[in-house]
């Protein structure tokens, strides 16, 4: 077990004077799952880019089976046996599974020489892809077009591609960020099989429970520095967080300080064909209602319907006993509903606009002077919000693209808050957010409830749901299967109802 397949010695890298990585060490054993942990900006992605040859380090070396790789180009490192499964999967949707797996290597696979070497041999490509997928134990047709696959299936194809490349080291960057719990189980089984075959995995994730489930070893980076490497068994969640954040977080989930008030939102027998049916719940002032369930259970769809992004077919939604049927988000916002989407890049912020312009976007009517914009009031409101939410930004004019995930999320929350909502729906509010910022977002959510707002929080992270919610609504396949109080809810119970 002591034979290291990959050794990284004293890597440093600066970008325009800023040290992104400072003397990093990293040793990977054959057949182990080695988690790489760190907050956003800790240097994980630069480190990965160096490993796969996208970035050349200033000093230090990368040794794969004793051979110095530093300075090699991507195509070389790939040939030598380092593959990466990217968070945003890189596929060509119009090609088939088999064509994607062997993309760029058709010539080797087709197995024809001489004058025929430029010809495709699709049947051979399909045969080899089928064999490969079979060996992995996944049920994907090699002739299926990529665009018809689920995210999880695409990931499997990427892994198959890595295996077909004879990868000795596979780097997985947030592989579970967009797949369901059940699919995670399949993925982990494949990782264990790969381990057994002697393939080493470098695993990057923000999800603590996954890290402890799958990894053998954990290395932590912080601010571009190497903090330490421990065996997973030696650590617990708090100790790991302490390593990552550099301080102890005594209490992850803040307690309510105000009693729950009167009902603000009530939903009765809400249904939309093919998406969800018979959904009934209410949320009160000062309360956090958690919406739990697997991917595709209909949680986001319910939120979208309430917010006027999608239509719904039956049932009733009321705010303070007055029925509402929002046809556009504008109507929902005007009635006091706010929605922070799970899809931050798609439905959240506007990348090419500044922090100020994003934050005030839903409440421009407060800054109207005739048809013109009152820049003064806009500026002061933005500065206040940046201070309130502790948004880390170079200024109100900074483009949102350049902020970290957590701060982008805060900008979106700020925008929603400035429209003075009474009911806020937060959909996966901490997705892609690092641990330190997560804690701040939890505090923020609780304080909003304490200020008398009604909160609906959708989350796939059970610890988050359990820690923060006052009541938990569990959904399964578009139906509501349980409404649990904080006292009775446990991780197991929620999971049982979520798969019911």
């Amino acid at each position: 077990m002591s034979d290291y397949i990959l050794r990284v010695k004293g890597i440093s890298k600066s970008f325009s004077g800023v040290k992104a990585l400072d003397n990093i060490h990293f040793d990977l054993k054959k057949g182990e799952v080695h988690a790489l942990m760190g907050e956003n900006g800790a240097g994980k992605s630069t480190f990965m880019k160096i490993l796969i040859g996208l970035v050349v380090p200033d000093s230090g070396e990368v040794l794969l089976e004793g051979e110095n790789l530093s300075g090699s180009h991507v195509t070389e490192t790939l040939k030598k046996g380092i593959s990466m499964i990217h968070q945003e999967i890189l596929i060509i949707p119009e090609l088939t599974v088999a064509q994607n797996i062997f993309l760029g290597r058709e010539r080797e696979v087709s197995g024809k020489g001489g004058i025929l070497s430029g010809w495709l041999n699709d049947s051979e490509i399909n045969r080899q892809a089928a064999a490969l997928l079979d060996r992995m134990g996944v049920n994907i047709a090699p002739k299926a077009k990529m665009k018809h696959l689920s995210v999880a299936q695409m990931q499997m194809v990427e892994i198959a591609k890595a295996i077909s490349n004879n990868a000795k080291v596979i780097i997985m960057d947030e592989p579970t960020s967009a797949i369901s719990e059940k699919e995670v189980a399949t993925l982990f089984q494949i990782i264990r099989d790969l381990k057994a075959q002697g393939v080493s995995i470098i695993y990057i994730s923000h999800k603590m429970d996954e890290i402890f489930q799958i990894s053998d070893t954990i290395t932590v980076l912080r601010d571009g520095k190497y903090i330490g490497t421990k065996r997973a068994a030696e650590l617990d969640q708090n100790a790991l967080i302490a390593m990552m954040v550099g301080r102890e977080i005594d209490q992850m989930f803040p307690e309510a300080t105000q009693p729950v008030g009167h009902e603000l939102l009530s939903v009765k027998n809400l249904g939309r064909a093919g998406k969800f049916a018979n959904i009934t719940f209410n949320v009160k002032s000062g309360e956090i209602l958690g919406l739990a369930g697997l991917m595709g259970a209909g949680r986001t769809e319910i939120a979208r319907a309430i917010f006027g992004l999608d239509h719904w077919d039956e049932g009733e939604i009321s705010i303070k006993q007055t029925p509402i049927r929002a046809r556009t988000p504008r109507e929902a916002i005007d009635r006091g509903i706010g929605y922070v989407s799970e899809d931050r890049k798609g439905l959240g912020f506007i990348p090419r606009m500044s922090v100020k312009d994003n934050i005030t976007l839903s409440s421009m009517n407060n800054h109207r002077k005739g048809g013109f914009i009152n820049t003064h009031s806009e500026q002061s409101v933005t500065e206040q919000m940046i201070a309130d939410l502790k948004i880390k930004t170079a200024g109100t004019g900074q483009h949102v693209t350049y902020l970290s995930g957590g701060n982008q999320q805060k900008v979106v929350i700020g925008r929603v808050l400035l429209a003075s909502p009474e009911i806020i729906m937060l959909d996966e509010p901490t997705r892609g957010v690092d641990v330190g910022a997560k804690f701040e977002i939890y505090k923020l959510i609780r304080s909003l409830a304490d200020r008398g707002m009604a909160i609906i929080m959708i989350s796939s992270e059970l610890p988050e749901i359990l820690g923060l919610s006052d009541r938990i609504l569990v959904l399964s396949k578009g139906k509501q299967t349980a409404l649990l109080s904080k006292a009775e809810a446990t991780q197991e119970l929620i999971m049982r109802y979520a798969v019911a």
Partner: protein
Amino acid sequence: MNRFSKFGQYGIFLAFALICLVLALSTPKFFTISNLLIIGNQVSINALLAFGVTFVIITGGIDLSLGSMVAVTGVAAASFAHPDTYPLVVPLLVGLGAGSAMGAFNGLVITKSKVPPFIVTLGTMTIGRGLALILSKGRPVSNLSDEFNFIGGGNIAGIPFPIIILLIAFAVCSVVLNKTILGRYMYAVGGNEPAARASGIRVSRVKMWVYTICGLLSALGGILLTSRITTGQPNAGAGFELDAIAAAIIGGTSTSGGTGTMTGTLIGALLIGVISNSLDLLNVTSYYQQVVMGVIIIGAVVLDGVGKKD
């Protein structure tokens, strides 16, 4: 990356200054007051159209019907501008009204049908051409009143009237884009339409406005052209949309939406005007002018792409 994006922002100004310098050195006739006024005059129509299409491109759309709108509005205005028939406001209102109506039609079809703007305005481009021919029965509408002809041909204190219109339009468009809520919403819609909608912006309404404004500015261009050549020509303005779009793109408006400035567009229009003016001064055939223009357009987009990269 910062270095490049800065260059993308200011590159157009630099390029413009550099080209002017080269021209001033190569022909003494370039840098004279009278020639600069002529350039301003020649640029005015394209600049007006370019302002309009800048709004549209910022919201992530496109308008190919500009040239046709120039023809329709020109012919419509000319029909009411014969001497001793109607007061001057009538042809102006008819022209501007026709342009706004066509623009609003574009906006309506685009927002209601969800057909891409490229296709819708391709359709209205052809419809407009037909309308102009129907209105004019295929013949130029000439014999226009002196007041009407003043718009495109007159001077105030030695400054051609079209330049004055251009400067006013530039000021108004800049204010609309930068100082009004509508302008802010345009950037938001083009920057990320779903997010803009989720932020409570009535996206359809913003688009309606944008296409209507574009039609209005095209009408202004159409009236200016008609007055300048003292006839309403049904086949006028063919290909104007491409010059206008080129000016916007050279000026740094991204075709993917969400960015762009009126100043950039004005410089883009000036650049096109300066090049065609100076190549005439140097007696270079128009074939080369087209090659030069193409190179500049591609160059501008390449710079824009470099600026966007991470």
